[in-house]
């Protein structure tokens, strides 16, 4: 126990740096996947059948295969199979590859949530907008969108919290996120080796961060309670 207390400052310092990378991947994924998911949702709802089929096929493949495999393929495929290492080396390259995989994967999950949300808004809302001379885009942004957001906050919260934990998968391509940082103390890092407790300790980071997210998302849900 005494040893742990001595190691604590060094470990926390390293884990903080790792968690920063986790956080970066989390934010970049959300910023990318929120709009991309909406575009995919519109694609799968399109009345132009070929577009809707292709979109649904892509969503099926992405949701039907492990994110870990997607990470590996996206990171290694260009360099090893196509001889065109588009990601470059180093942490930056790994981060770009991981972001791409995460954005794409999560956009597909989000698209299904969006689709459910949009389709749960009664058709009457759209018809009311139409007879009032509103454009389709105006109806979407002024009428449908907020009602959709209200309905998708709970399922979205689930996905967002899962995303926080899923970022650890990026460790498979050696992105130096918080679990990678925790594990490094087993092999030896910052003069500490053979310590497994830092790896366990990473759980605290996830737990605290998800606690904060839960509070924020709960507050958003409350905020949208003003209408039904």
């Amino acid at each position, binding site marked *: 126990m005494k040893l742990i207390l001595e190691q604590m400052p060094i470990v926390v310092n390293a884990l903080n740096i790792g968690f920063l990378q986790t956080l970066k991947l989390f934010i970049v994924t959300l910023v990318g996947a929120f709009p991309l998911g909406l575009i995919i949702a519109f694609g799968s709802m399109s009345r132009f059948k070929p577009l809707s089929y292709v979109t649904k096929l892509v969503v099926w493949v992405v949701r039907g295969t492990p994110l870990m495999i997607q990470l590996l393929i996206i990171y290694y495929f260009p360099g090893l199979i196509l001889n065109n290492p588009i990601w470059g080396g180093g942490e930056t390259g790994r981060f770009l590859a991981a972001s791409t995989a995460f954005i794409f994967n999560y956009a597909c999950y989000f698209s299904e949530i969006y689709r459910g949300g949009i389709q749960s808004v*009664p058709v*009457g*809302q759209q*018809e*009311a*907008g*139409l*007879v*009032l*001379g*509103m*454009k389709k885009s*105006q109806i979407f942004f*002024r*009428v449908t969108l*907020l*009602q959709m957001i*209200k309905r998708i906050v709970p399922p979205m919260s689930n996905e967002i919290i899962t995303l926080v934990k899923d970022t650890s998968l990026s460790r498979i391509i050696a992105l130096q996120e918080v679990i990678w940082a925790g594990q490094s103390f087993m092999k030896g890092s910052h003069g500490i080796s053979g310590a497994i407790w830092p790896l366990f300790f990473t759980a605290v980071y996830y737990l605290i961060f998800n606690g904060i997210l839960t509070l924020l998302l709960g507050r958003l849900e409350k905020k949208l309670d*003003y*209408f*039904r």
Partner: protein
Amino acid sequence: MPILEVNNICKTFGHTQVLRHINLSLEKGQALSIIGSSGSGKTTLLRCLNFLERPDQGVIRVNGETLFDADDPSTQSEAAIRRKRLRFGLVFQSFHLFPQYTALENVMLARKLLAAEQPDFKARKREILEEIEAQANLLLSQMGLSNRASNYPHQLSGGQCQRVAIARALALHPDILCFDEPTSALDPELTGEVLRVIRDLAKQNTTMIIVTHEMTFARDVADHVIFMDEGVIVEQGDPAQVFEHPEEERTKQFLSHYKQG
């Protein structure tokens, strides 16, 4: 010249012919009631007039201008239809108010969006928005809802919601205001307050088409009554004649249900 002329409208859903060769005309300032059992095509007819359904055949003219002609694709482009819709207002059976906006905002929203398309909007923005708000407040007070302007739809009774919906439709100054069973979702107590508002509109010579199951109301408020059955106009005329001395057997049969009740 009639304000509205409908010629030979036909509409089929799948294998069901919902409207068969509908012809009607309406004079400015008059109220037309359409009665008939459920599934007779009344609602579809209103939806065709508001371009929510596209007729398979026929012509719709307002003030002599051809708004829709099934044989002329140039009358059917999305952009053209959007403007033409404004000739008609539609009040739905289940209101379809926008839940995230207050009563006042519901009435103002469409006007504001249209105003933003005016070329002089930027220069006169403040003035225009004030004008829209004043008009919306006036409409709400005509509907007896001055004290409800800042309430959200879920805070209002069904009758109040429907009156907001009427104000929302009136805000765009439609040439013809259509009601699709405006009281069918309301209990009898709330029905009265909505019918009162529509009666007032009739007194002010608002041109209206009212699809309703309230026979007494249909008779009182209308200048002209149409009885529809299975997609056909079976009988039409002035209310006293259609209600008291119907000529067609089907009309007599339909009205008898109401006389017993």
